[in-house]
């Protein structure tokens, strides 16, 4: 039994599934914010923080 491989596939693989989705969400949010009119341009910090967080 290769427990080390199980750890990688299940635990680390699972963490990636959760993180990838969070990243995709952050990117989608960033894209949504980028589409907003110039009056909302002051929010670039929050759009950037999502990417930085990733």
């Amino acid at each position, binding site marked *: 039994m290769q427990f080390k491989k199980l750890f990688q596939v299940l635990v680390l693989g699972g963490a990636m599934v*959760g993180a990838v989705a969070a990243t995709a969400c952050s990117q989608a949010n960033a894209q949504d914010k980028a589409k907003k009119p110039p009056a909302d341009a002051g929010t670039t910090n929050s759009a950037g923080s999502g990417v930085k967080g990733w």
Partner: protein
Amino acid sequence: MTSARAAAAEAWAFRARVEQEAALRFDRLAAVVASFDPASPVPAMMRRAADDERRHTELCARLAGNLGLQVVLDPEATPPSIAPRSLDERQAALYEVVAACCITETESMATLTTLVAAEPDPEVREVLHSISKDEVVHSRMGWAHLSREAAATDVAFLAPLIPGMLAGTIDEGLFAAAPADEDPEGLLRLGVLPLEQKREVFLGTLEQVVFPGLEKFGVDPEPGRRWLARAAGC
């Protein structure tokens, strides 16, 4: 009927009931998790997992039937939440996901991997393969949820609750002597681990996969380790 055949029939019948319960649990948890983490991929994974488990129920029941034991399932079964009542809804969902996926499905994967490698009968092998393909995802969705919750909130409350989860995954005979008439080769051919191997897989999976995984996401594994040392008589 040989002792191995009778034991395997019981084991597959038990699995059919467990798979049915898992399907209902995942359906319920999918809705709960979506309510507080709508961006999570886990609810969609859980809904697919529920469908998988319904398919597994049929596969396990069919194998039990082929071994001479007809499985009667209660279509109205509604497994209750296994979480302590003191937890709020979000904590209770995490408790159930960790118990059902991070521990139970991870242990299942280790068991299935061992069984497939043991050259079971062709029909059994086909079922084990089919189930193990899905169980990888079911275990991962638990770790995915725990990792997201660890990033969003405090998950340390789980640590003292891990022994209770572990106790629920074993029967009291796990650390006892094997039955005198146990037929290890016959059991392996029919998709059941002999007691000694079952113990090895259980211990190895906890020590090398589950406990390190919990620790990685901020859940202290020490209470679980202490429970294991007592249970195993180490």
